[in-house]
């Protein structure tokens, strides 16, 4: 029991978790048919990459990796605001959120 408590986690496990989360995000982007859920899959991919950044920042004792994650968060917040506004505008014009039905650029 003591050996489990004192054990450390290999860095590669964090990276593997990040890779799996990214792949799940890509998969969600492909199979989900709702515009909002597709957008959530993009957020999942951003988070997976953030985990990689924090892991490498920890490994190399670099603060800049964490600052990059901070910038990614800010850009993701801006992206979420603009993206959801676009979703509202699309819904107002089309009255649907299914990505199969939103196939024209013009309103």
């Amino acid at each position, binding site marked *: 029991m003591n050996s*489990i*408590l004192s*054990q*450390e*986690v*290999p*860095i*590669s*496990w*964090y*990276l*593997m*978790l990040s*890779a*799996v*989360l*990214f*792949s*799940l995000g*890509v*998969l*969600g982007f*492909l*199979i*989900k*048919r*709702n515009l*909002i*859920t597709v957008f*959530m*899959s993009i*957020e*999942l991919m951003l*988070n997976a990459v*953030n985990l990689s950044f*924090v892991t490498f*920042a*920890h*490994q190399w004792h670099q603060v*800049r990796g*964490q*600052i990059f*994650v*901070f*910038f990614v*968060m*800010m850009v*993701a*917040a*801006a*992206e*979420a*605001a*603009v993206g*959801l*506004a676009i*979703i*509202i*505008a699309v819904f107002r014009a089309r009255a649907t959120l*299914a990505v199969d039905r939103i196939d024209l650029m013009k309103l």
Partner: protein
Amino acid sequence: MHLILFLLFAGFCLAGAINLLLQSHPINSALSLVVVMTSLAVLYLLLGAEFLAAAQIIVYSGAIMVLFTFVVMLLNAGREERTLGSRAARAVGFPAVVVILGVLATLIVHAHGLGVASLSDAITSTEDLSRVLFRELLLPFEVTSILILIAILGAVALARHGDGETPTSEERTSPK
């Protein structure tokens, strides 16, 4: 302790991500995403990034997910209809996902000298972080604030009705 916490919250993370894919209602997907982001905040804390853990909870699981659930409720989004998607997504997309995961996993498994992460070493304090951010990376920080300002203006301009547009009779009668 580190190992137990890692396994617990990595499990939460993966379960939330898989649940996001399996749920058919957007609100359930949004709540699963909250679970993923909060678990990631704990993993950041395990890696010594205390400021980012707090920012992750406040910005992601707080602000962004509130925005998501707000839009889901505003648009009254129902269950999504199950379609198989485009043929290109099936033919190219799914093998591409497998290839991406395979390449990343091979790289990670074969990488040498990655080492281990432990709780004790190298906790980055907010002071260290802000010293680098405000001394060396001040220009990118200010540029990002301009980006956020533009994003706010863009979101307001996109989401409201056009100026010249007169409200239709349906909108005029509907209770606000």
